[in-house]
């Protein structure tokens, strides 16, 4: 039965389409997407304070550059990566993308980011940026991310507790065995009221510091770069401390691993030693406790051995491979990374500026706060003591981090032996890294 297209049918179809039209266009109602034609979209992650400052920075750029409008899209860290991955898949990601160390490899290798090589050095001046930071944003020798600030692994200690117990503060060249002695002393002298240290045995960043001190590393060319024996040594070290109360017990460790810093043992005064990434010193630790927190270099293997720490970019600015305003975006990135206004606005919210130009602006100002001075002094110390940076982790490094955490918990809760744990971790991690 065929019906010729009558006037009524035509009208109906039209009406139906009319009814659909707003629905279809609703898919495109995202205001940012609409403005993308004449604006540069810039997405960033962080806590509300950091996002507020970066939003302010975007406005500042817009007001001083009449031809470009920076549309700022700030998202809380917890949701940022889900959103970015979805935007990428939908072809609707922002032009300038704030991205972290593990993911720049993941996104860059997948062709989601644009090489910035053609903008260096004319549009983006990379000379003032520390070489060791810069190479961490390179993939196969090409620049894919511009570091904006630097974050350094440090060992934090509770000055108030150590002074109360009459214990000496750790010094710059302390060793892992001195760390263990101090941790056990804290436990004993406090009358077993608090534990010595946090338990970082499931934390890849901490393991990396330990491995680098031994001349090894987590990854090399996308595979695990350390022998089983070192992981065994690492787990045994923490198991021994766990047995004496030198580190927090398994259930407190499992808890502090969750969520944010307020759940950490240093802030909760359950332990007096814990590692701190420098940008978090103020907001994540010092502001949350009435005790005084000080930072120093993490322990080494031997007195004259290598210190494992190295400055890392807190995050990068990268360019979306599909960006239609790449030139404007690159200019904005340079202004963000090297500009005086940017340094003055952001200060040390993500750590000291990666660019020497930005650091100079802050050092010349006479308004440095106590914790800013602390971080700047420590960064200086760390730069002097650091070795060449590690290679960027492979795409599956997030899955390997999950695996290390789980293995450390299995061991701490005595579900498996250290030997079993190490074997299982190495086998599973290799399988994960091979891409199954």
């Amino acid at each position, binding site marked *: 039965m065929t019906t010729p297209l009558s006037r009524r049918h035509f009208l109906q*179809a039209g009406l*139906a389409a009319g*009814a659909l039209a707003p629905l279809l266009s609703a898919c495109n109602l995202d205001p940012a997407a609409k403005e993308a034609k004449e604006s540069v979209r810039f997405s960033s992650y962080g806590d509300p304070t950091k996002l507020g400052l970066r939003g302010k920075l975007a406005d500042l750029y817009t007001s001083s550059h009449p031809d470009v409008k920076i549309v700022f899209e700030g998202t809380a860290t917890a949701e940022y990566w889900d959103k970015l991955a979805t935007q990428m898949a939908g072809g609707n990601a922002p032009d300038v993308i704030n991205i972290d160390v593990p993911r720049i490899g993941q*996104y860059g290798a997948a062709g989601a980011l644009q090489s910035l090589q053609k903008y260096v050095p004319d549009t983006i001046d990379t000379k003032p940026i520390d070489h060791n930071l810069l190479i961490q944003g390179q993939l196969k020798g090409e620049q894919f991310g511009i570091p904006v600030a630097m974050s350094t692994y440090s060992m934090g200690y509770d000055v108030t507790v150590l002074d109360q117990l009459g214990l000496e503060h750790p010094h710059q060249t302390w060793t892992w065995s001195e760390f263990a002695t101090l941790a056990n002393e804290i436990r004993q002298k406090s009358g077993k009221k608090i534990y010595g240290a946090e338990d970082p045995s499931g934390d890849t960043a901490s393991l990396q510091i330990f491995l680098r001190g031994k001349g090894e590393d987590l990854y090399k060319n996308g595979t695990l770069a350390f022998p089983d024996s070192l992981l065994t040594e690492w787990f045994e070290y923490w198991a021994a401390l766990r047995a004496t109360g030198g580190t927090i017990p398994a*259930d*407190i460790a499992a*808890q502090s691993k969750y969520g944010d810093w307020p759940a950490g043992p240093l802030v909760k005064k359950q332990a007096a030693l814990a590692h701190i990434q420098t940008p978090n010193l103020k907001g994540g630790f010092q502001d949350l406790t009435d005790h005084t927190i000080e930072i120093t270099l993490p322990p080494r293997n031997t007195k004259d051995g290598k210190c494992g720490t190295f400055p890392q970019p807190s995050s990068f600015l990268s360019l979306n491979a599909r960006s239609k305003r790449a030139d404007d975006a690159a200019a904005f990135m340079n202004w963000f990374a090297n500009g005086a206004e940017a340094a003055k606005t952001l200060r040390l919210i993500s750590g000291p500026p990666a660019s020497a130009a930005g650091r100079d602006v802050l050092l010349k100002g006479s308004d440095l706060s106590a914790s800013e001075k602390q971080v700047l002094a420590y960064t200086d110390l760390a730069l002097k003591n650091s070795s060449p940076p590690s290679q960027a982790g492979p795409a599956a490094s997030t*899955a390997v981090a999950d695996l290390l955490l789980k293995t450390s*918990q299995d061991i701490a809760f005595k579900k498996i032996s250290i030997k079993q744990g190490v074997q299982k971790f190495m086998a599973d991690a290799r*399988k994960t890294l091979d891409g199954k």
Partner: protein
Amino acid sequence: MSLGTTIAAPAGHEPAPDVRDGSTRPRRRGDRVAYLFLAPWFAGLLLLTTGPLLGSLYLSFTKFNLLQPPAWNGFGNYLKLFTDDPRYLQSLKVTFIYVALTVPLQLGFALAVAVMLNRPLRGMAWYRSIYYIPSLLGGSVAIAVIWGQLFDDDGVLNGFLAFFGVAGRSWISNPDTALYTLVLLNIWQFGSPMVIFLAGLKQIPQELYDAASVDGASAWRRFWSVTVPLLTPIIFFNVVLQIIQAFQAFTPAYVVSGGSGGPSDSTLFYTLYLYQQGFTNLNMGYASAMAWVLLLIIATFTLINFGLARRWVYYEDR
């Protein structure tokens, strides 16, 4: 446009006019108008539900990291799920334990409360509202956070235990107990099955109870021989619904474990592992395969339920 015409088309090709009332045309026109009004909903169904649904079926046979086009992987994802992924099997185990514990306990609790709230007391409406409140809050992140605090090592529960000289532990961050705190959280949210039970209880004719009383049946006997048999359709409905919901549990585990499913994967719910694979590890194809297996699991359970229902569910009108 093309979508609009395809949706409008069935109205134009209506093959079976209703001849009994002799006037086919007005009826057909009515249908068309109805379809027209339904069109936005159909569009939503096609674009926002059916499309993504079929899309995920396709993706489940691919490797897809969201950034590059999906690459065909045949049954690779499904094969890996059951032969080469211990964390997946762990997530299955956690989820099955959770479902097996939470469904009967929650329903039993809901039924008990519903029976208590079915009595003609003064201010009963207030009691009912109060008992329903946990369910209104239940799915929220805030409650999951509070739950974490309650069962923490320095939480309320341990404070209570310490009062009696019992040394507590961190219930929520111990792999032996973490899952059970989440089971408890779900039982506490008994409100919605409770309300359904309450409505069912109201339907049971009072004469039956009176007759049973005259025959000398005790309260317990009246419950088992009158209430429970007449309530079986409601119980069945709640069982089906709660099993489906329990399989899909996500928020409490995500919040309490900070998204890790820890400690030691003891709260690694199926949906949580699916989320980790999809969004943390960007294995969207693998996550899609997991989603389809979950659909099959839930469908199987529902079918089994309907099959068994013939044996124990009593419908008065049959």
